[in-house]
């Protein structure tokens, strides 16, 4: 896909806009793409990055990523007009079918925030009320907050209190005691676990991460066991069965 633009929107956080036919195949928010980083054999594997926003008209999509290691650092050096080898869209994403007027609570942690943005937009289009609770490490790592605010109530916390409230997303939940019909979350596993435990009776969708190689369901790299021991398969592939699962489906 062609790079339409790339910019650093927070410390080590990059917003990348890509254009290509792949966009028209995206079915749901929460799907991801698998990017070839580097031209040769090192890095060898693709890198999974969530789709953050779709612009069907321009056949473009936005990804937001943090530079972690070799692959994402390489990616951050690519410039407008250059091409990137992208496989996707992959995975199943978040279900958005919901009655209008209902309330959805969207909870994101750090680099788990991006896929919630397209989700929020699509829910709003269906006249669903959205509430966002977003957690970041520190002020310099905060991004996309204004965009979320435009779509609905948005609560921001940082680990060190340098932006928004100090604390974790779960602290906000304790304080606010939101009334909601469905919860969506993406972020670090401990956060997802906490949410799963906190709302056993609710309809909760969690987007998971796992080390991948193929990203298409062929290699069995990204498997997690199901909670249900009687489950026919006993496992789910994060890449092709997920990355979004209903809370309780797989063991976190």
């Amino acid at each position, binding site marked *: 896909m062609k790079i339409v633009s790339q910019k650093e929107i927070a410390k080590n956080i990059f917003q990348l806009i890509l254009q290509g036919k792949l966009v028209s195949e995206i079915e749901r928010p929460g799907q991801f793409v698998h990017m070839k980083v580097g031209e040769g*054999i090192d890095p*060898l*594997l693709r890198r999974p990055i969530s789709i953050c926003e779709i612009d069907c008209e321009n056949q473009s999509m936005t990804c937001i990523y943090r530079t972690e290691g070799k692959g994402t650092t390489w990616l951050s050096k690519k410039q407008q007009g250059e091409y990137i080898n992208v496989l996707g869209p992959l995975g199943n994403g978040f279900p958005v079918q919901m009655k209008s007027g209902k309330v959805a609570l969207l909870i994101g942690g750090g680099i788990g925030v991006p896929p919630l943005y397209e989700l929020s937009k699509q829910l709003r289009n269906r006249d669903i009320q959205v509430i966002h609770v977003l957690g970041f490490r520190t002020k310099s790592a905060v991004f996309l907050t204004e965009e979320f605010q435009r779509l609905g109530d948005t609560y921001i916390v940082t680990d060190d209190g340098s932006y928004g409230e100090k604390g974790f997303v779960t602290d906000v939940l304790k304080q606010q005691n939101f009334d909601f019909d469905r919860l969506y979350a993406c972020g670090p596993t401990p956060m997802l676990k906490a949410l799963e435990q906190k709302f056993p009776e609710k309809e909760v969708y969690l987007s998971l991460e796992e*080390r991948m*190689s193929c990203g298409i369901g*062929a*290699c069995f790299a990204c498997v997690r066991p199901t909670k249900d021991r009687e489950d026919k398969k006993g496992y789910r592939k994060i890449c092709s069965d997920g990355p979004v699962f209903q809370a309780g489906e797989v063991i976190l």
Partner: protein
Amino acid sequence: MNRFSVALPGLQLKNPIMPASGCFGFGREFAEFYDLSILGAIMIKATTVEPRYGNPTPRVAETPGGMLNAIGLQNPGLKKVMEEELPRLSQFDVPIIANIAGSTVEDYVSVAKEISEAPNVHALELNISCPNVKHGGIAFGTVPDVAKEVTKRVKNVSRVPVYVKLSPNVTDIRLMAKAVEDGGADGITMINTLTGLRLDMKTGKPILANITGGLSGPAIKPIAIRMVYEVSQTVNIPIIGMGGISSAEDALEFIYAGASAVAVGTANLIDPFICPKIITDLEQLLEKLNIDHISDVCGRSWKHGISGYHCP
């Protein structure tokens, strides 16, 4: 595609390119990308008597020019493979090579006996080399007598030719090759992965939950080529070569080394279209190099003269 057809025990290959076991699942996912009938054959994921869940995650880690995997032979078990996967694959005009694994000789015999009856299974591939399973795996693949024994027992019950997949984690792979040939193997597939380890910078601990994993990808190619070169001069049964192939040039290098056909593993995980691409490119490469038939150059690295020989 005539310069491409290769006849091996049990296998009439349209072309010498096939996906390697474990890197193609049971073909389901790749069937969404292209028509599997264009492949020379398909090596399906290792099948065991009972379903296996495999190892905890992380199961993969990247290395310079390669990757480690410790999937742990996850598979739905013999019954499911026989009832679902193989019948589904029969819609494609392509021979299946069934990769079989187990922890005891009896395991191998049970799977071999049953799976070799599936109509589209044209050959077995005994995975005596998978380094990820605590029991069995290592010993079968590194002790010549044990390898010979399991080969013999499987040959006794199999309805189709038996290929044995060799592990590179040995001092002298020729001894292993000779042993399985003596055990009655119809062919050899090689190489499986080399045992490797990666540690996390922050914690100092292994990245893989299983600690070690099998190294595959471009990094291992020169080792694989060396081993095919050695084994092809040692045995009189054909070799399907693999280890780091990601281009037509790589494929041809294995043929030069002494392989009659080749399998592509890790590269499928990076580019799902790699097998069709290699098939197309290889045809052009042969054209460019004035090679009439792929089998003419099998073993060219060690055979005298330039062509006219056929492997083995």
